[in-house]
């Protein structure tokens, strides 16, 4: 049957590392262009922090795209709702937030983030059952339904909280920077990097080390065959949608703290970035999404510093370049 002996040693899986090298190469190329090492380090740290926040918000969407083939244009609603829920929790504890104790700050922030995730996840359950379920497999209707859902969510937030921007100051212990020689790295950016990395590792562990993860990865590629193996993928859809919504809520809290403000349409600009990340990463690929988020953030930060006039189109150019290189994204998982 085969010319390979059954007793030969098992080969190791091959890794496609070219996409991983892209952000490294981009970072190295910009060193001489930026000139000052301290500025470069500051921009790089800012890129990584921004990239991690975008990754947290985009990771759920890429799984929803890949697994469910659902074009969810309303993903931004979960981001905004997450941020608003955090303001509800943080407002009564403003004094604890301004206390000069990291633990006291985290004791307020952590429950706020968890509640935001819970509410966004629950909203995801409602959206999936009410808006998505009737239009599975119908892309145009999905766009209409989810865009409509986003508008309703934004207007509801306006109605409940008003049109004004709500300040969301950083807790006292996360203000300021770590100073390393000439380099200043904002404390909050370090926290954002750590949380983003933790989320990435957790998702990778679930996807690669558990049967649930196998099911999700297989479902992204071929839903029908997963069902033919006896697994009820609709339940999996719902779980992934809720998890993606919850992560968007977490991302909303982190982004609001990063910008130190909350408003109902805060996700509008982010949604464009998130979609770019999902597309260049490859639909359904968490690894691609992670690298894509870092690339988008690097291009925004380095590009904004080096060629400010190109800042508005830099990420579109990045997407065009990546899709010309790999038309299905950095890591093509689905055949779509």
């Amino acid at each position, binding site marked *: *049957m*085969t010319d*390979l*002996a*059954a007793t*030969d040693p*098992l*080969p*190791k*899986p*091959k890794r496609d590392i070219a996409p991983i090298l892209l952000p490294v190469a981009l970072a190295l190329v910009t060193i001489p262009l930026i000139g000052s090492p301290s500025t470069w380090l500051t921009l790089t740290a800012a890129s990584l922090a921004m990239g991690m926040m975008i990754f947290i918000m985009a990771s759920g969407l890429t799984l929803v795209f890949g697994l469910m083939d659902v074009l969810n244009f309303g993903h931004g609603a979960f981001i905004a709702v997450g941020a608003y829920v955090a303001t509800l929790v943080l407002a009564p504890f403003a004094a604890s937030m301004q206390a000069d104790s990291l633990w006291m700050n985290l004791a307020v922030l952590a429950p706020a983030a968890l509640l935001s995730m819970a509410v966004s996840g629950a909203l995801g359950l409602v959206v999936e059952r009410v808006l998505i379920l009737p239009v599975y497999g119908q892309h145009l209707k999905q766009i209409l339904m989810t865009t409509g859902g986003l508008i309703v969510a934004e207007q509801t937030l306006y109605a409940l909280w008003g049109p004004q921007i709500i300040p969301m100051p950083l807790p006292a212990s996360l203000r300021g920077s770590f100073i390393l020689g000439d380099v200043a790295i904002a404390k909050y950016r370090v926290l954002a990097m750590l949380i983003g990395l933790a989320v990435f590792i957790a998702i990778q562990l679930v996807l690669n080390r558990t*049967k649930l993860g*196998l*099911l999700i*990865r*297989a479902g*992204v*590629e*071929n839903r*029908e*065959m*997963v*069902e*033919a*193996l*006896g*697994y*009820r*993928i609709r339940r999996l859809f719902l779980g992934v949608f809720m998890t993606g919504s919850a992560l968007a809520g977490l991302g909303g809290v982190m982004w609001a703290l990063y910008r130190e403000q909350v408003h109902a349409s805060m996700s509008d600009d982010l949604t464009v970035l998130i979609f770019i990340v999902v597309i260049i990463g490859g639909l359904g690929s968490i690894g691609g999404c992670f690298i894509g988020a870092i690339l988008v953030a690097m291009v925004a930060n380095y590009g904004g510093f080096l060629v400010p006039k190109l800042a508005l189109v830099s990420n579109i150019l990045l997407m065009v370049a990546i899709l010309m290189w790999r038309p299905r994204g950095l890591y093509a*998982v689905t055949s779509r």
Partner: protein
Amino acid sequence: MTDLLRLSGVHTHIGRYHILQGIDLAVPQGQTTMLLGRNGAGKTTTLRTIMGLWQASSGEISLSGDRIESRATPDIARLGVGYVPESMAVFSDLTVKENLVLAARDGPLDDTQLDWIFGFFPALRRFWLSRAGSLSGGQKQMLSIARAIIEPRKLLLIDEPTKGLAPAIVMALIECLKEIKRKGATILLVEQNFFAARELGDNVLVMDNGTIVHRGEMAALAADVPLQERLLGLSLETHQ
């Protein structure tokens, strides 16, 4: 011999197309039933309708006497139906091992069963930790079949397993399917390769335009060249 699977008056529409137009068939327990026919006759649609991947518009499908035509695909699979689609549908991003772990729905991989499968498909052992997407067409077919037999199944639905494969691989697949047969499996096998059909089939059903136009013993059809030419537009001699 009792019938494990029975279809009565099954119609299937896909969009505005009326594909299956009143299928009546029976698959006896412990036997291999070949489903033959020209391209577009409705063979793949028949398997997909049994599997619940396309809903029957009308008619009855029963497995071990239980009606299944309204059941969802996962429920039909859980009744013990294994499916090997024409496209093989291995999960390219998963390793060979992960594909089989997923197929072993009821628990961890059974080493004895795995060794038995490796006996037929040593390439699967060799590429155990390789991504299924990197396998050749024949190896993907082996994996697809291995996935269907990694746990005991009541019924195997196999769609054109020899399609596009090299002759040596086809022979190996035939040997494997014979061994699966010997273990008592009930198989409904769609095949265009008449040689493979003759080697494997106990019974034969021939489809044309969404209906069964012939049913009988495979050996009888294999021996009747004029009947082969009339039903299939070819004869066994031209396929040897």
